């Protein structure tokens, strides 16, 4: 099948055009339902332990509004760029889709760099993983989110590179689509992290 033919014959929503696509689509949403519980439990643990600083540094000693704001905007913009990528996918524009996914990945990397420098700084200020119950639950919650970002970066990179060869078909479209769902979900989690962990931490409540 040539590429030109693909462009003409694939339907408006290529991600759910086949049964396999529909399965991936529903299956991934269900997985996100499970992830919600996973992060919910981590948030719950954090909320129960966030004032247990054991004499170590507390949230309001460490967090700075500007860093968190930068990280938040980076992730929010990357969420928008991955929306653009899915739009391009539905327009069957491979190059455009790859471009937007590339931007998404770069923003993801920027976020990770920011997070790593931030963690380094906290270590400097003597907030080690085993300093207090607050530090353990903080690093675990935010670190789990960071691992999700890292995995997303790797995942989106591999499928974007593969797009050179495979293009947009009813086989590949579901993959691009669920990867973008995953990326949005990362931002959903981050919204609660910046609110509950950082802002409430700085507000001192």
């Amino acid at each position, binding site marked *: 099948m040539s590429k030109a033919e693909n462009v003409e014959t694939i339907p408006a929503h290529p991600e759910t055009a086949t049964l396999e696509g529909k*399965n991936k689509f529903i*299956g991934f949403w*269900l997985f996100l339902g499970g992830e919600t519980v996973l992060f919910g*439990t981590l948030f719950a643990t954090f909320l*129960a332990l966030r004032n247990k600083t054991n004499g170590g540094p507390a949230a309001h000693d460490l967090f700075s509004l500007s860093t968190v704001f930068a990280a938040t905007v980076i992730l929010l913009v990357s969420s928008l760029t991955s929306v653009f990528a899915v739009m391009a996918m539905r327009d069957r524009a491979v190059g455009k889709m790859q471009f937007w996914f590339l931007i998404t990945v770069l923003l993801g990397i920027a976020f990770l760099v920011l997070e790593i420098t931030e963690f380094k700084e906290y270590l400097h200020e003597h907030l080690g993983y*085993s300093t207090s*119950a607050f530090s*353990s639950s903080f690093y675990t919650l935010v670190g789990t989110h960071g691992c999700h970002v890292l995995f997303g970066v790797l995942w989106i990179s591999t499928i974007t590179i593969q797009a050179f060869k495979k293009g947009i078909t009813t086989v590949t479209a579901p*993959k691009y689509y669920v990867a973008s769902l995953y990326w949005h979900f990362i931002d959903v989690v981050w919204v609660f992290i910046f609110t509950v962990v950082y802002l409430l931490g700085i507000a001192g409540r």
Partner: protein
Amino acid sequence: MSVNAESLMQPNQKNGLFSWLKTWLTTVDHKKIAVLYLFGGGLFFLIGGIEAMLIRLQLTAPENHFLTGSAYNQVLTMHGTTMIFFVAMPMIFAFMNAVVPLQIGARDVAFPFVNALGFWLFFLGGIILNLSWFLGGAPEAGWTAYAPLSTEYLGRGMDFYVLGLQVAGAGTLMGGINFLVTIINMRAPGMTFMRMPLFTWTAFVTSALILFAFPALTVGLFEIFFDRLFGGNFFNATNGGNSIIFEHIFWIFGHPEVYILILPSFGILSEVISTFSKKRLFGYHSMVFATILIGFLAFMVWVHHMFTVGLGPIANTIFALATMAIAVPTGIKIFNWIFTMWGGQIRFTTANLYAVSFIPTFVMGGVTGVMLAIPAADFQFQDSYFVVAHFHYVIVGGVILGLFAGLYYWWPKMFGRCLNETLGKINFWFFFIGFHVTFFPQHFLGLMGMPRRYFTYLPGEHLTTLNVVSSIGAIGMAIGVITLVVNIVYTFVKGEKAEGDAWGTGRTLEWSIPSPAPEYNFAQTPLVKGIDTYWKEKMDGNKKVTAAEPLGDVHMPSPSIMPFLMSISLTIVSFGFIFSDKGVHRTVSFAVAGIGIAMMLGCMLVRSIKDDSGFHIHKEEIIETEKGMSK
């Protein structure tokens, strides 16, 4: 190639052992994966059973020195953990794999690859856990692994517990998602949700519970893991941690978990009783409603495991009321089964004996459950043998009796041969009577003050007689299980060939196709006209179910070794972390874990790059196969 006695027992003469091994290691066929789950679960059932016998042996006499202290704790912990995670769970997945796609008229599950991955993760998780016996001692904190006991006071056995369950839990979660999507997306034309057989309904709700309960366990295990290996402080009270958090997390997972176990048994009961009463299931809609309600309430009651922690009268009252509310939907189910039998032409096959015996046994477990739901009473009962008796009545008397009913009922569909009925009845009576003799006295042992989890008791406490009775009952159960094993071997060698509609009164779609089901399940996708569609067609005088499509080529997924390799990778990761305590040089073990993670990511990359186009079974081949199959 179909799953039958020949292909299972003997390697193909022409291709030898290697080819046989390759078939089973690479299969993505849900019917073969069902067999893998069944025998994987069966293996762990025998191990867990031996552990149970050792416990009874120790408790037969007061101040016995057969298994003391740590050794007893290890056997006890492994018995509980094995039976819940590596026996009941895989047995449930065995039947879900074998039956759900057939009941909804599907050719396969939604994610055949993930299905195979789920099995291998479960199996290797079980292997990791059981290897602890040979590598420095098994976990010994009970199946609940409460912190800080599990985090601060015990040795490497707990690392085996954490990582074994983590690996197996990942597999279970995948299995749950797979069956949810299968049921949502792959029902045959006309198979609306309210026409689904009840076993499929319970599989659906159970899978949803798995989806929402297992992530909590994942987090709980990770927190123990970080506390143990990286100096985390989640449960370390000295540094501000709080061990009550673990109890909450464990039971937020743990209570749904016990409903994950019991719901499929409810489903099996509904199928077996209606088939052998030759009657439609009484109150189908109320059954569906009750199943969903039980699933919802599963997440509302976890604190009843923690009444004595001291969370205060308000919390205890709310959760006590929610717990008692569960008796309502469960009661609906009990009455529906009884009314299904009422006026039916009942046949007491072994499957039906198990199903019918389930009802009074489970009611007894339910009644003690309501007793335990009263906080004031629970303060007296808790951590005594009364609790042990209660949960064995619901898990053995409920889950296991249901699963055995399913085993006898669907064995012909899975293997093409019927299990022997005479041996089956011997199996049933020994197991059933043995069960009651074992666990009924334990209610009274509990009320007399015998605490659970202790390795011994004193001679003057009047506990000896009932403990001896209990141990004698355990021998009865063991004889029952041995008879079952004999029956299985006998059936593989000399069993009667089963017809497509093996019991003659099959009602649901799985009985409309040959036994064992051909690789493609349905030559033509069936058109479903109502509840119990196959029975309807038979009553209309049709031999076959109306087809929804013309005969054509069938697309199948290719077998793959990837699921096995991925599971091996995670096993390597686990062993890396298990041996990363002070005993071994840390960098070495972390390097091993790193290699495992890299292998896992590599496998995922290969899986992403290599698209599986599958293969086709051609029309002519299907016609040929259908002719050759016994109907």
